[in-house]
């Protein structure tokens, strides 16, 4: 990683220009969504209000709509076991949702692990820590491939035996075991060993969701990229900085839309940019049309 000159001045320009609230708008929205989802799951067991029942692997919304994690579903199918239609329906619903809004919206807006890894990254920035270990982002592809192959060969849901993501999500709703220890390990790994190690380099779920969102409709774009003053703040805060460059620094005939499936649509680049280069919109933005005009209509898309 080249960003060794990072100091905790990141985002200060944006705060000065836009004010604290606008410079944290997407972050706050994301946290509200993340905690609301956890709260919805907890409302049943704690208050007896069953809006949603189950956990993020599979659940039942309003006692009628099945929702299932397509990643767990895929593993189940690969084991060769025949399953009920309910879980298929649930997986299709979730698949279609993320297909439209962006696969890794799951990572940035839903998965509770993100709160922890974001915190680790925040600490890393505040303490100005350097990456000690460089991990390859291909690791998660290798792990994903291994998991899918193992599901076929062992006929078992092998990943679900150790998956810290579903484990934490489950224990959050069904009573905490020791998965918080695992989460603590992920925090320390991310904060002190390697930047964004878990979500950006190891987690196969995120990789899987990046494929779902490869052609997703809702995208972050750098439509106002001619305003960019090269402060590098967006690269510093972005959990997948490699996705920004083609859109921000691409030639005039290249789309200003961040097209990589790895983008989590977290909006941290939008928040941190003092020049309002980035906005959230759809994938079919025409650079000629939007380069000069102020692009307010695109920014209002809500999730």
């Amino acid at each position: 990683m080249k960003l060794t000159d990072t100091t905790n001045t990141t985002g200060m320009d944006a705060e000065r220009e836009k004010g604290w609230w606008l410079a944290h708008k997407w972050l706050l929205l994301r946290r509200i969504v993340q905690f609301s989802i956890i709260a919805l799951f907890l409302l049943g067991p704690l208050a007896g209000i069953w809006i949603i029942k189950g956990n993020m692997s599979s659940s039942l919304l309003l006692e009628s709509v099945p929702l299932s994690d397509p990643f767990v579903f895929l593993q189940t199918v690969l084991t060769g076991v025949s399953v009920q239609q309910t879980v298929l329906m649930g997986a299709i619903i979730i698949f279609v949702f993320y297909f439209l809004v962006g696969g890794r919206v799951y990572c940035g807006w839903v998965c509770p692990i993100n709160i922890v890894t974001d915190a680790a990254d925040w600490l890393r920035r505040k303490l100005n820590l350097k990456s000690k270990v460089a991990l390859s982002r291909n690791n998660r592809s290798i792990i994903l491939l291994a998991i899918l192959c193992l599901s076929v060969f062992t006929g078992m849901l092998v990943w679900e035996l150790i998956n810290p993501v579903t484990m934490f999500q489950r224990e959050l709703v069904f009573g905490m075991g020791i998965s918080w220890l695992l989460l603590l390990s992920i925090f320390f790994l991310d904060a002190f060993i390697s930047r964004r190690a878990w979500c950006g380099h190891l987690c196969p779920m995120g990789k899987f969701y990046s494929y779902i969102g490869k052609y997703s409709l809702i995208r972050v774009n750098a439509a106002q990229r001619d305003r960019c003053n090269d402060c590098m703040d967006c690269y510093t805060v972005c959990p997948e900085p490699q996705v920004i460059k083609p859109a921000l620094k691409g030639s005039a005939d290249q789309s200003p839309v961040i097209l990589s499936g790895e983008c989590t649509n977290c909006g941290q680049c939008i928040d941190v940019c003092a020049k309002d280069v980035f906005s959230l919109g759809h994938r079919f933005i025409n650079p000629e049309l939007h380069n000069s005009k102020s692009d307010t209509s695109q920014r209002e898309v809500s999730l």
Partner: protein
Amino acid sequence: MSIAGGTTLQQRRRFLENISRAAGGLALFSMGLGVYSRQAQSLPAEALRPPGASINETEFQSACVRCGLCVRDCPYDTLKLATLVDSVALGTPYFEARKVPCEMCEDIPCVKACPTGALDHTLTNIDDARMGLAVLVDQETCIAFQGLRCEVCFNVCPLQHKAISLDRSHNARTGKHALIIPVVHSDACTGCGKCERACILEEAAIKIMPLKLAKGQLGQHYRLGWKEKEKAGGSLVTPDIEHKYNLPEGETYDYAGEGLKQNKAMPDTPFGKSALERLNQGLQK
């Protein structure tokens, strides 16, 4: 060799390096997880799966997505999800009979809640569930075998007389009392665990065991002669000559039942009906 080299040879070298690294990592990760998954397939004997779960643990574990909907719909909080510290596959539902047994709800809500069919939706009558099998594992401590009246396991059994019956046998210690022994019948026992829960001993003498451990199985080639005979409607080999005792006239022997039988329709003896008549015989003439 320079690191930033761009010749085909160096590119190839780097490519091969990366591929080998990936393959090595892949192999190590797969082996570790593969070996662990083998271990995770062994369910501890005291952990019972909900009704409708496949007896094949591997099959159950691959169908179960660990969503906990069965746990949520269990009205008696019998079911729980395994955590890392339990020796049950992570996140899968189970219960322990000695702690909280299955109450055998008639509508089987846990099965209905299962979105994947890991709990078989064709199970509609809870009496057909086979979560395990009750086995009176310790006759040395079960007080019924000491000649004491207990029968608690029989009394709590939801399928009394079918899954557990009471059989009487001779009490050899006192010589004059009966032993009233609970006997489990595998054709009716669902493995709900209420007997194990209720057993009055410090450590239950009757325990629910996984069917795999509790049941024997006759060899595929093995045939029971009398059953084959019944099926065929007659002897399959040269019929046996029926064994006959050489009995006095008027007496028969019932092999399957009472044993020696006196024929009631015995002809009158020349000796009259009562002893007095016999003594007075001849005096009247």
